């Protein structure tokens, strides 16, 4: 091998690595600098309200991540506070998706029924969900039942209305083709209506995801809850335990980020064929 053949790819690789390094630096350095400044500022001011990030990270480790590696470093405390919150949210969101898509497709394909229900649905959508939580406290049992009801009642509307909208605007030609091929009702839904509505459905699910996260925390902040991250927040607030308060907030941010990433990955997988997906759903 001559020196020339060696250096050419090496140089290119070096260039690429350099560019990559610059890219990483460009992307993450500002965040690192910000955290460093925050650390310095909070240490200097020594305000009880703003603990330094290192202290928050330490508290987070003590609270939830001191477990064995086999449990993803999660400890028992994490199981007591994170798990109930996530279980309630996951259950409610799953129920919303199933009910919202099924009802949405039914309503979208039947203009008459939709006309009867539209004012009620639109009104239910615009009610700010927290106002209904006191009602659910009266109607349901304290705790999980009330929380699940609050999450479902707030997160189902965007999915339902978006699905109905998507199902209503299926291309006429596609429906006519499906008819010409004598597809059964189920096949029509499975192969024509559902795929055509998917971009809208995902737009609705994305809204529902952030709403359900909001309502999950909100419903746990109210008196009468005994577990969950929201409960940990109120508990820390009443004891003026600010590092814990900050830790829960950071953890919720991380969880929100994870959920969003997962949803985006699922969406990309399902909508790969849909060129205009990014356009239709903001």
């Amino acid at each position, binding site marked *: 091998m001559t020196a020339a053949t060696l250096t050419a790819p090496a140089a290119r690789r070096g260039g690429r690595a350099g560019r990559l390094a610059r890219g990483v630096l*460009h*992307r993450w350095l*500002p*965040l690192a600098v910000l955290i460093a400044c925050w650390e310095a500022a909070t240490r200097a001011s020594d305000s009880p*309200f703003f603990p330094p990030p290192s202290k928050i990270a330490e508290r987070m480790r003590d609270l939830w991540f001191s477990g064995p590696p086999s449990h993803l470093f999660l400890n028992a405390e994490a199981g007591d506070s994170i798990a109930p919150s996530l279980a309630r949210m996951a259950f409610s969101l799953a129920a919303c998706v199933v009910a919202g898509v099924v009802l949405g497709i039914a309503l979208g394909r039947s*203009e*008459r029924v939709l*006309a*009867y*229900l*539209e*004012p*009620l649905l*639109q*009104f*239910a959508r*615009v*009610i*700010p*969900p*927290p*106002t209904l939580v*006191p*009602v659910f*406290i009266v*109607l349901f049992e304290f705790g999980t039942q009330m929380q699940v009801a609050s999450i479902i009642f707030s997160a189902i509307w965007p999915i339902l*209305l978006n699905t109905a909208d*998507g199902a*209503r*605007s299926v*291309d*006429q030609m*596609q429906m006519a083709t499906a008819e010409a091929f004598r597809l059964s009702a189920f096949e029509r839904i499975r192969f024509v209506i559902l795929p055509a509505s998917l971009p809208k459905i995902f*737009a609705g699910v994305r809204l529902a995801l*952030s709403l359900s996260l*909001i309502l*999950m*925390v*909100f419903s746990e*902040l*109210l008196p009468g809850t005994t577990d969950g*991250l*929201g409960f940990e*927040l*109120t508990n820390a*607030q009443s004891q*003026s335990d*600010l590092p814990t*308060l900050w830790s*829960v*907030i950071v953890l*919720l*941010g*991380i969880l*929100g*980020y994870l959920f969003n990433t997962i949803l985006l990955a699922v969406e990309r997988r399902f909508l790969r064929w849909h060129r*205009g997906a990014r356009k*239709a*759903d*903001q």
Partner: protein
Amino acid sequence: MANQTTPPRGLSRPGKWARGAAGVAVLFLASEALGRAGIVDRSYLPPASSITGRALELFGDTTFLFNVRVTLTAWALGMLLAIAISVPLGLLLGSVPAVNTAVRAIVEFLRPIPSVALIPLAGLVLGSGLNMEVPLIVYACSWPILFNTMYGLDDVDPTAKETLRSFGFGRIQVLLRVSLPSAAPFIATGVRLAASIALILAVGTEILSGFGDGLGMFIAQAGTAPDGTRDVLAGTLWAGCLGLVIDTLLVQAENRAFRWHKAQRSGAS
């Protein structure tokens, strides 16, 4: 694409209205029948007539109207500040890629924090009332406006920008004359999304704050009173009406201002 063929088949506009009214009437009567027949406990779920009656009664109640005004003030202040912060920021991030890459990680880190989780912290640091409500609303509402502004800038026709540039207009001029107007429909969608989030936050913080004024406070207090469900539901009806009026006004304004824009067809709902 599928959404270019919205079929306005079948029902006429009055037909739609009549059916909608019928739907509301059926719900109304059903709740009335269930309540009066004693199938549902009236103190748990009062019949619709008594809720609407109470809601109308509240319309003449000056303390209640004061509460509504407090909530709306927080809403409006929060929205104005959020728009004033996020639109310029979105323009900056959307038009200068270097800044965008640099700030991206920070934004991605801050955005997913659910705003209600900040309520206990804001309560300790900022106290209560508008002092605490407005910053929370600003925080929560900035994201949809910021992201829609950036998204709108992505969508600007490059030919239009090049044309202006070749006529000798500077960067700022191009931004203000081409990019901002063509991003405006997206910004409006962001503002509409933010408006409902702002209302959620305004009412939510009031419900949790424990004292002070506002529609949320009214609902929270009614919720703890014996037999207060009627007041809670009347307050909820009011909150829903506020949401409906805000949403309708913004949708109408969008339709009127951006009739020319294709984003209307494929835009968010």
